[in-house]
Every structure is written in C-alpha cells, then in structure tokens.
C-alpha cells in the first residue's frame, strides 16, 4: 500500500513524544514493505516553527519525507496569552480558528499538496489532534483517514472546533485505554474503527548496568527521571519530593537525563547527566532502582515503556491516567499524588527488594504482551486492511 503520514515536525533531531512516535511507526511500516511518505513542515522547534530543514523531498530510513515551509513564526507569549483568554472566556468559532492559526504550524504548501496528491496514496494517517496541519489536513482529504490523537486531558479539547477534528477521521489509533475513555467522554466514536496501539518498544539484550555505575561514579542506588526536564513535566515537584525524602535516605541519588529546560538545585544527591545515547539510557534505566514519571499530562509515556522493558518498576504521578493505567494493567508500579505518598511508595520499593523484582517482572511481561513491535505492527496491519476494504 501507499501510505502517507501527516505530522507537524519530523526528523531525527525532533524528540517530541508524538513526533518520535510518528517517525518510529512510519519507519516500521516502510520496513514492512509499504511505500511510505511523510508530509511535514521545515520546522524543528515547536516553540517558533522556524524553518530549519530545507523544503522539498528527501529520504530518511526508507521513508520519503516531503517538507513544506511554515508561513508564520509562532509568537509563544502572545499565543499563551490568547490561550489563557480563549480557554476561560466566551468566544466565537472565528476566535478558535484564530487560536489555531496562532498555534500553527501554518503551512499552506502542505495543505495544497495534500489536496492535489490525495489520489496517489491509499491511506492517510494524521498525528496529534492539536495542530493546524491536522485540522485543515483532515478537511482537505476527502477519503477515509486515520487520526492518532496522542491526547491528554487539556483545555484545548474543550474548544468547539475539536468536534470537527474527531468527527472527520474514519479510524482512530489510541495510545491507551485511558486516552480512549477520556476522549469518548467528549466525542462520539460510534461506527468508527478504533484500536489501542501505542508505539512499540525495543527490548534491549543486556544493558551495561555495572558500566553505568562506574562511568558516572555512582556508588549506591538511584532513582531515574528520563525526559525533558522542565516544570511542565512535574520536575520541580519531583525535586521537592526527593529533597524531602533525602535526609532519611542519605545514600539515595536522583539521576536526571534529557534536555534541561529549568534550573536544578545544587545538591550532592541530584545528578544531571545530560543528553545520553539510547544505549546509555537503557543502561541507566536498568541500573535504576525505580524510574519516576512525575508528569500529569501524558498520553503514553515512552520512557515508562522503556523502563519496563528493562524490568525496572515505575513510580508515577497518579493524576496522569495513562501512567496509572500502566501500573494497574501491568501491576508494574506504584503511584503518588503528594509528597507523603511519594515518600511512602518510594521507600517501600527501595526497602522491599522482592516487591521491586516482582513489579519489574510484571512490567516486562506487560510490555512484551502489549507494546512489543510485532504486536503494535499487527494492529497497524489490521488498520490498513480496514482502510483498503470497501
């Protein structure tokens, strides 16, 4: 089949959750013998949508990438102010369309190409419900199309125009059951094709845990946070909770890896290791006693899947339904909603090695059963059969 993906950003340097999700799926679909094209913009950063990649056609890991320039730089401050207004005040549909323009990426060339080239593809898969390219792209494509919403409960879902976004596709690929339930409470999915697919995870053979301890001079157990380090991801709260536990656990270290977007306190037991390679990340996850996922706004959390793939249990934010769902469905982690619960759950997992081991093993089985690549790709094959059937 000839399959087209539409996503707001695409590239090896783009590390956003849904963009990486799209790239991993597109590459796997291409590897399985389909002709895959990606319609995307020249932008690399969602904060500005500045055109960084050259416009035109290129090939990346077997996938044909067609890039179109963004017509409008995003003004983050004015967009945030406008969002604050629109989410809490009465407004009209034209206000919402204005919000969508400001959200971006405004890319008329991409929309024009979609309209002209629809007949060249057998299926269109749109990633992320939130952006200009998805809203107008879904309108341009007249045939059956698929949406991978990657949604979490946020004010944008309450905008009136989102009803159109969720009404137009014929099929939906959700990340988790929690995401599906949350969206089903707002939109109707009657007579629509639905699948809970998520994204696959590679199960590493034998991560070098001893080497990780040696390379970073870690002498005792540590808990790990992997991902963008910013207040929006709950990192400030995580550090507060950790600093509260630290006096009772002087041997425990909090290790953070990923893109640092906030200040960290100068504390001997808080270690930032920077941006590390995938192998080093796997080693860090395998070596950690627990991986912590403090974000409240998650639709899947690939870091949690990667942690379970190396048998390390999770400690997650209770308010993030998909993360809690991982813990409950997989019986593979604990959750917290405040400082005392964080401390109690963490200390239980640190002190009770047997519990930790059982949770880790459960997590490994859960990931292998639900998020191994063959399982995820089988779900996409079913989707393609549905889209090609009359």
């Amino acid at each position, binding site marked *: 089949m000839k399959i087209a993906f539409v996503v707001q950003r695409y590239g090896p340097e783009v590390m956003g959750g849904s963009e990486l999700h799209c790239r991993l799926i597109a590459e796997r679909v291409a590897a399985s013998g389909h002709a895959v094209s990606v319609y995307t913009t020249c932008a690399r950063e969602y904060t500005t949508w500045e055109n960084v990649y050259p416009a035109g056609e290129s090939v990346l890991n077997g996938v044909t990438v067609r890039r179109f320039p963004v017509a409008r730089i995003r003004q983050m401050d004015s967009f945030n102010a406008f969002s604050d207004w629109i989410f809490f005040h009465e407004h009209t549909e034209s206000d919402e369309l204005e919000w969508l323009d400001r959200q971006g990426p405004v890319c008329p060339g991409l929309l024009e190409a979609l309209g002209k080239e629809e007949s060249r593809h057998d299926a269109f898969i749109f990633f992320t419900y939130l952006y200009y390219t998805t809203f107008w792209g879904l309108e341009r494509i007249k045939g059956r199309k698929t949406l991978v919403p990657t949604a979490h409960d946020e004010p944008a879902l309450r905008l009136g125009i989102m009803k159109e976004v969720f009404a137009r596709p014929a099929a939906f690929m959700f990340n988790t059951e929690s995401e599906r339930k949350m969206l089903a409470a707002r939109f109707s999915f009657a007579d629509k094709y639905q699948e809970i697919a998520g994204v696959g995870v590679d199960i590493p053979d034998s991560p070098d845990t001893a080497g990780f301890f040696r390379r970073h001079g870690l002498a005792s157990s540590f808990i790990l946070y992997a991902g963008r380090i910013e207040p929006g991801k709950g990192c400030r*709260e995580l550090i*507060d*909770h950790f*600093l*509260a536990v630290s006096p009772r656990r002087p041997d425990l270290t909090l290790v953070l890896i990923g893109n640092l977007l906030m200040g960290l306190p100068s504390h001997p037991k808080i270690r930032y290791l920077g941006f590390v390679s995938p192998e080093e990340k796997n080693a860090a996850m395998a070596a950690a006693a627990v991986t912590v996922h403090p974000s409240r706004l998650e639709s899947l959390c690939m870091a949690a899947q990667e942690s379970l793939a190396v048998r390390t249990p999770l400690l997650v934010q209770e308010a993030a339904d998909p993360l809690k769902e991982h*813990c*409950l469905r997989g*019986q*593979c*982690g*604990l*959750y917290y*909603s*405040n*400082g*005392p*619960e964080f*401390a*109690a*759950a963490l*200390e*239980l997992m640190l*002190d*009770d090695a*047997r*519990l930790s081991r*059982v*949770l880790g093993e*459960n997590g490994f089985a859960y990931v292998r059963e639900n998020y191994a690549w063959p399982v995820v790709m089988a779900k996409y094959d079913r989707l393609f059969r549905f889209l090609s059937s009359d």
Partner: protein
Amino acid sequence: MSPKKIEIDYDHIDVTGIMDQIKRKAAAEAGGISGPSSPERTPPPAPEPEAGPGRARRLLLRLMSPLRPLIKLLILPVAEEHRQSLLLLDRANRRIDRLEHDRDRAFEQLDRLREYTKLLHHLCHNLVVEMSKLKIEEETLKTKTRILEKDFEFLGKREKALEKEIFE
C-alpha cells in the same frame, strides 16, 4: 516507613491494594508529623486555637495524651476529606483571585474608555462651536460680497452713463 507494615501477596500482586495501604499510611503520617510535602498541595495552615493560660493548656494536653491514638483514628477519614476540601477551596480561591484580577483590569480599561469618551465629547462640542462661528463668518462675508457686487454694478452703470455723456 517500614515495609513490614504493608501487607503484600507476592504471588498475586495487587497494586490497588498496596496503594490503599500506602495512602492510609501516608495520610496517618502526614496527620501525625508535619512532614514536608509538595508546596502546591500543602493545604493552608488551620488557624491556631486561641491559647489559654499556657500551664492549663499543657495540663489538658497531658491528660488527653493517652487518648491521642483513638482521636487520630477517629478523625483520620475526616482529616482526609478536610484536606481535599481545603485543596478544592484553595483552587477556587486562586480562580477567584484570577477573576478579580481580570475584573480590575477590565475596570481600568473601562475608566480609560470613559475618559476617552469625555475627551471626544469635548472635541465634538468645540468643533460645533467653531463650525457655527465659521458659518456666521461665511454669512457675513456673503453679505459683504453682495454689497460689493451692488457697488460694482452701480459703478459700472455710472461709468456707462459718463461715457455716454462724454461721447455725445
């Protein structure tokens, strides 16, 4: 916290059951010790009861100390509800603060608009006065022009009469 106090069936792990026990323990500890917690989730401190004479208060507390575990046990569920209510109130208060801030800004804008409207009114008034003056002046000038026209006509007639006298 000692892990021995949490009952776990390792052959059939039940995360929900473990979490229930953890939550109860955490709530009990948070109630017993003023342990550190997230700043945004910490409920606002309850108002201190009005202290009586220090000695009597200490005596009363000492008399009540054997009953402390029972009191804690009885107020535990209520304390959690109380905490949740305080959190809700805290959120509502923040929302009200924001709305009040928005309202104040709207009033400021309204005041500015009122001043602007006043200025526009004065401007319109002055323009009308000036237009009226101009109209009057125009009428005066028109009258003067008519007089001049008549004078000119009279002089023309006189000129013609004089020419006639001279050439005849």
